């Protein structure tokens, strides 16, 4: 069995013939969702995504697409096969970013205008809790054991650690200016938080009981680029933890960071104002949304090189890829 999987993985890497996945891209200004085939890298569909679609995620089985329709003040749900709108979920006002728990039952939604994190049940379509957080909540992360949800607040400049047991904040960690995104490693022992205006990524060690300790701050430097434009936003970490990818906004680059030494190894040039990132399920490719050039860049993860860009809708914001 193991050999079989290994062989098919190899085959996939070598030619990747079938087993195409779909990437869904939310277009903030165009109010649409673009669907891209991750085999041919061609746009196969573009459909109405509600008003100002930003955060975008999938149910664990890949059948349902959830979209934060920020200006509609709700989460829209679409069928990933037919692209039909199925239902909508209450989200609280101005939902921007969210995370879904591994069971697919709970959505944790940042309400940017209301200083709240809303917890929504995807089955009963009801709000389970509203957690008051700092000013302008944005980044959302969930620990692999689903015991913790982390929210970052852009004007308060904190990462808030919310226990999913009782929806109470247990820890607050001050980070640099305008924290945009939070990401755990797959083993749950580390958390990364990007600070757009501070220009840093805060690194926290996470104890077995979930307690965070700030251990390092990663900063960036690119010759010929003003330091002011190195604005970290989206973060993804490979499943083995060896590489961290950080989107640098108006610097039009994705930083490649060594997961062990936390040193920046390289900067990959992508489209303009790079915002969010998503891996394909095999982590062979990393997709970036480029808000000002209206495209996504495909990065070959092993080679750490950009291989292609695909035109999508107006002002692409978020991206998610269906699981295998």
């Amino acid at each position, binding site marked *: 069995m193991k050999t079989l999987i290994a062989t098919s993985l190899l085959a996939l890497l070598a030619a990747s013939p079938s087993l195409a996945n779909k990437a869904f891209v939310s277009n903030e200004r165009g109010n649409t969702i673009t669907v891209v085939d991750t085999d041919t890298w061609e746009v196969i569909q573009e459909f109405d995504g509600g008003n100002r679609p930003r955060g975008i995620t999938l149910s664990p089985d890949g059948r349902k697409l959830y979209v934060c329709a920020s200006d509609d003040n709700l989460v829209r749900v679409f069928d990933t096969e037919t692209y039909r709108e199925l239902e909508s979920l209450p989200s609280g006002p*101005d939902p921007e970013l969210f995370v879904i728990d591994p069971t697919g039952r709970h959505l944790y939604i940042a309400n*940017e*205008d209301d*200083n709240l994190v809303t917890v929504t049940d995807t089955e009963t379509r009801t709000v389970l809790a509203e957690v*008051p957080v*700092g*000013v*302008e909540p944005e980044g959302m992360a969930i620990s692999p054991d689903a015991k913790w949800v982390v929210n970052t*607040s*852009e*004007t*308060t*400049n*904190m990462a*808030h650690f919310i226990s999913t047991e009782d929806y109470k*904040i*247990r*820890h*607050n*960690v*001050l980070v*640099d*200016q*305008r924290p945009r995104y939070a990401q755990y490693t797959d083993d749950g022992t580390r958390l990364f938080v990007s600070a*757009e*205006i*501070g*220009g840093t990524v805060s690194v926290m060690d996470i104890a077995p009981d979930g307690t965070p300790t700030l251990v390092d701050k990663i900063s960036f430097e690119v010759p010929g680029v*003003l330091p*002011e434009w190195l604005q970290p936003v989206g973060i993804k970490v490979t499943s083995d933890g060896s590489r961290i990818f950080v989107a640098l906004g*108006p610097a039009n680059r994705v930083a490649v960071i060594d997961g062990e030494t936390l040193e920046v190894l390289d900067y990959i040039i992508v489209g303009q104002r790079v915002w969010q990132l998503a891996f394909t399920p095999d982590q062979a490719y990393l997709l970036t949304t480029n808000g000002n050039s209206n495209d996504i860049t495909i990065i070959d993860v092993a080679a750490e090189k950009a291989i292609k860009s695909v035109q999508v809708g107006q002002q692409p914001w978020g991206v998610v890829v269906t699981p295998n």
Partner: protein
Amino acid sequence: MVQSLPSSLQPDKRYRLQFASVLLGLTARNPTIQNGRREVIVRQIIAPLLAVLLYVGLAGHASALDVKAAVLRIDYPRLLPISRYDLRPEDLGFAGAMLADEDNGTTGTFLGHTYETEQIAVPPEEADAALEQILADGIRLIVVMAEGRDLLRLTDRAAQDDALVLNATAPEASLRSEECRASLLHIAPSNLMLADAIAQFSVWKKWDEWFLVSGSNYADTSLADAYRRAARKFGLNIVEERVFADTGGSRRTDSGHVLVQRQLPTFTQGAKRHDVLIAADGTDYFARYLPYHLSSPRPVMGSAGLRPVTFHAAHEAWGTTQYQTRFEALSGRYAHAEDYNVWLALRVIGEAVTRASTVDAQAIRDYALSDAFELAAFKGQKVTFRDWNGQMRQPILLYDGMITVSVSPQEGFLHQVSPLDTLGLDRPETECTSFN
């Protein structure tokens, strides 16, 4: 700028009480302020009530702190502005303070910090007494909205009680140079920063030949000085200068536009060939009339046309939509630059309290001037202070009355410390010695 709110913009429930109180006194339509008659003292104190309930300890920041500040606004006798869009709301600046208290207070709930800001509006002759009262109340963090000479007098008095003053409105260069004070931080950009912002855009456009038209009042001539300096600094050429004397003309009402349409082409005719007209009108009595009425078909920049501003209500980049939404829900109107400046002044205090865990005015000043200080202010990059004269470094928006047309510093204007230091007085140029 459009003053009325879209009908869809309803105040949030939580803010309804404050909204009602603001509505009662919306002075954009209240003539008493414009005439500078005796004004009531407005005091609004908002205490974040949830602080104790929500307070969750943060290692090393566990001490409870109560931050008290004041906004002191002097309401000068003023003529009506040329445009109704420039009418001053009664809660000008104060609405920014309310938002800052909310923002700081929300952060404070996680640290055990509370924020209260008193808001006081007085005519010029009552300013000193108002300051005495603020100091007697034990407040040592004071945001002042006043003209330069009053600001300096108040700052000197406040300094005797070790209070820190933050300048939210006065633009004079001298306050950042020979007249600087160690206990005075400038949130408002200087005339020099504003003029440099326009000059850089002019260079970028290759509009090298300027026709400078200035007013005859002190506020106008000091602005004209800033534009002359900016032209020298960036290699632009002032080919012609004229003064539009303030003879006490009337506001553009009834048939006024007929006279404007006839007089201004005459006033501007025969000027040497120029790319752009630069208007220096710090008093707001003529510049608004210039666009479309010149003898030459040239754009206007400065006090009309494309204006350098610190903030405007249509600005949306860098997450500013969120600021606008919060402000409008709270105040029931659009934000003015003065509101933003007061908000920013109090956010500076909030940031220093959060990071340095202190309410001491001197310690807050020192933290704000230190390398550790940085603040996100919806300008696309962090704002910091010049530690040689207390001026906040910040990008300047170039605004046409509807949208942000551009933002200075312009691309390619480099500086060894920060591109922001290409705007205004740089360290070698200032005559300020109080910060040494």
